[in-house]
């Protein structure tokens, strides 16, 4: 009996202690406005940028006593899953670096905070970015949800020695020239042209022929047109004859860059991070042999990275101030030069472009920056819909069927149109 009593007392004490701890924790959270502040920033595949990120953190913590910033990095394939599990657990990071159009869904669902009041309050934040880039990187249904971090978009890389050997003196400026050059450059195992295909990166091939993805208000498919049918037929024919490498439609990142890097393709439609990817696995690619030019019609697909702030952040002002710091001219210039892509920060990008030393040390990158900036007014592959991932998949999986001769171009586009309209109707 006595033993039982001892157990009861022990359990009661343990429970009281646990309750007190939980209560104290709750009180601490309630009073967090005055206490130490802690935010977490989640980045997308940036372990190689660790020195700079640690630099952000030490500068910010130095200027904001009592604030702690924790950095978490995840690989590209892991980040969305990781972020969603954090959301489900109710512990999303305060700031998250998101690539492409994933953030539309987060904006629509209220997962990301509407940053419009902050942009309103800090006028400098609006003017520090190139207007077209800011619009494409940040706006969803008229409101700001993201702050541009680094902002690569697609350009046309080409193999200068192959061009010279084929007697081609300059990169193509029209689709007709691109097709003619690609045919001329094709021989043996070498294809004239290859493209990356994820996140709408192949879309300049259609847009240069006047094809839009959705109608102006984003409610219906707009791509099932005679021009699109003709484009798809041409692409199918060029693919089956090897002028366009099949890897364009089967690979994702490693494979097309590998093909171009290995010298098995003469032109590559890709965004700027591809430069490092194919150079690293190439014996021919260097500053003298890689050419960079705008895609015909200067059509370019953005594949931007930006920062969103969680609507459930306990310290949104601290998070905003941190984002302000890391996208200022100094850190933007650092991001552009280290990551080798535009930052979107006008002052930082123009300063790098006009820096003769930077151009001398990185001629292809500097040229890419100029090309990218020149295309900023001609961005395509932007659906502006929260269902972007599904729309993208519906279009691409059907187009792929036509490209590999499974169905006609007409049927592929008609099936894709029906699928997209069904997806958009169910929003």
């Amino acid at each position: 009996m006595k033993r039982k009593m001892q157990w009861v007392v022990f359990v009661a004490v343990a429970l009281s202690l646990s309750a007190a701890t939980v209560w104290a924790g709750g009180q601490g959270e309630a009073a967090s406005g005055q206490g130490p502040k802690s935010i977490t920033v989640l980045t997308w595949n940036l372990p190689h940028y660790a020195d700079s990120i640690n630099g952000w953190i030490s500068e910010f913590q130095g200027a904001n006593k009592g604030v702690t910033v924790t950095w978490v990095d995840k690989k590209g394939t892991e980040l969305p899953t990781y972020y969603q599990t954090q959301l489900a657990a109710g512990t999303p990071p305060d700031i998250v670096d998101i690539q492409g159009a994933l953030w539309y869904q987060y904006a629509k669902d209220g997962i990301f905070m509407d940053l419009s009041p902050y942009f309103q309050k800090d006028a400098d934040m609006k003017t520090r970015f190139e207007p077209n880039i800011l619009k494409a990187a940040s706006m969803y249904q008229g409101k700001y949800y993201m702050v541009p971090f680094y902002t690569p978009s697609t350009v046309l890389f080409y193999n200068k020695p192959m061009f010279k050997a084929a007697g081609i003196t300059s990169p193509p400026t029209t689709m007709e020239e691109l097709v003619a050059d690609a045919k001329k450059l094709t021989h043996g195992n070498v294809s004239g042209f290859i493209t990356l295909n994820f996140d709408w990166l192949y879309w300049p091939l259609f847009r240069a022929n006047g094809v839009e993805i959705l109608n102006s208000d984003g409610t219906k498919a707009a791509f099932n047109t005679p021009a699109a049918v003709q484009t798809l037929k041409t692409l199918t024919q060029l693919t089956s004859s090897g002028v366009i490498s099949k890897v364009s439609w089967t690979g994702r990142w490693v494979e097309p860059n590998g093909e171009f890097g290995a010298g098995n393709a003469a032109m590559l439609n890709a965004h700027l991070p591809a430069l490092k990817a194919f150079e690293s696995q190439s014996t021919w690619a260097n500053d003298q042999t890689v050419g960079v030019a705008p895609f015909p019609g200067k059509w370019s697909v953005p594949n931007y990275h930006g920062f969103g702030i969680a609507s459930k952040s306990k310290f949104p002002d601290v998070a905003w101030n941190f984002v302000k710091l890391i996208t200022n001219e100094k850190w933007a210039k650092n991001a552009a030069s280290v990551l080798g892509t535009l930052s979107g920060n006008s002052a930082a990008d123009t300063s790098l472009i006009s820096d003769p030393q930077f151009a001398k040390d990185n001629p292809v990158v500097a040229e890419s920056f100029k090309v990218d900036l020149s295309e900023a007014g001609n961005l395509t592959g932007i659906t502006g819909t929260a269902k972007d991932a599904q729309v993208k998949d519906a279009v691409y999986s059907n187009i792929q069927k036509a490209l590999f001769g499974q169905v006609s171009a007409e049927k592929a586009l008609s099936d894709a149109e029906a699928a997209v309209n069904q997806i958009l109707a169910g929003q």
Partner: protein
Amino acid sequence: MAILSRQRRRSRALMIIILLLPSLLVFFLYRGVPIVWNLVLSFEKWNFVDTPKFVGLGNYAKMFSDPIFWESFKNTVLYFFGGSPIAIILALGLSLLVNKPLKGRNVYRALIFLPYPITPVAIAIIWKWLYDDKVGLINFILRSLGLTKQGIGFLSNFSWALPSVIFTTIWQVLGYFVIIMLSGLQTIPDELYESAGLDGASAARRLWSITLPLIRPTVFLCFIVGIINSFTTFDVIYVMTNGGPGHATEILVTYIYKNAFTYNEIGAAAAMTLFMFLFLLLITAVSNKISGGEAGGVNYYE
């Protein structure tokens, strides 16, 4: 006396419960709760943040009207029927061979089992390279033998992609099935073969009348493992084709993943998961029934 025995039974039952409790608790937390939570989610729309909204049978209606769902279901069934029976037949043949007192049979056994412990991602990368139409070993051999002029895009061709992935899975799982079959073969008492031999039964007759009936539970186990594999294999397909080209190699589990983590359609993904779970239960029950019940169990001396 009776009171004592009742007390003893009670304390024994209590001991069993206490010993089982930690395992049951873990099972309940990691299996029971997610299954129930999945069931609840399948009737809801949830964006990970707000309170889930009840949508009734909306997710199921959407699932049944989704052509890609049916395509991935069809692919899953093809993936199973194209892979497991072949793997089981091959495994049976190989295990009969390496069950004989051959010279160096342990080496053969090790070689056959070798692919199984390799991680699926590594297997997928290796086979992706082997299948490559430009630099892949298979196309190199085909070209060298003059069997083809242009490389075959095994993973990019709509007709070849699924069979190519199935072949990889057979290669991966074969060693495991051989080990299971071997353990089954080694439980068959030798005297059955000896008496059949004395009665003048041929090797084919012994195989048909002794080996096959007595390894029924083993075949049943391979069959069930094959079913589970085909419904849950994710890594190999995700790395090799990501469900493409088009949705030619999309199976239920990759489509569920896309719905949950790419399209943010958690409710739809939960409905598909439940469908898959129920379908798995059904075919397991049917397989059990066909194999005579009791998981194909047999009595050697019946």
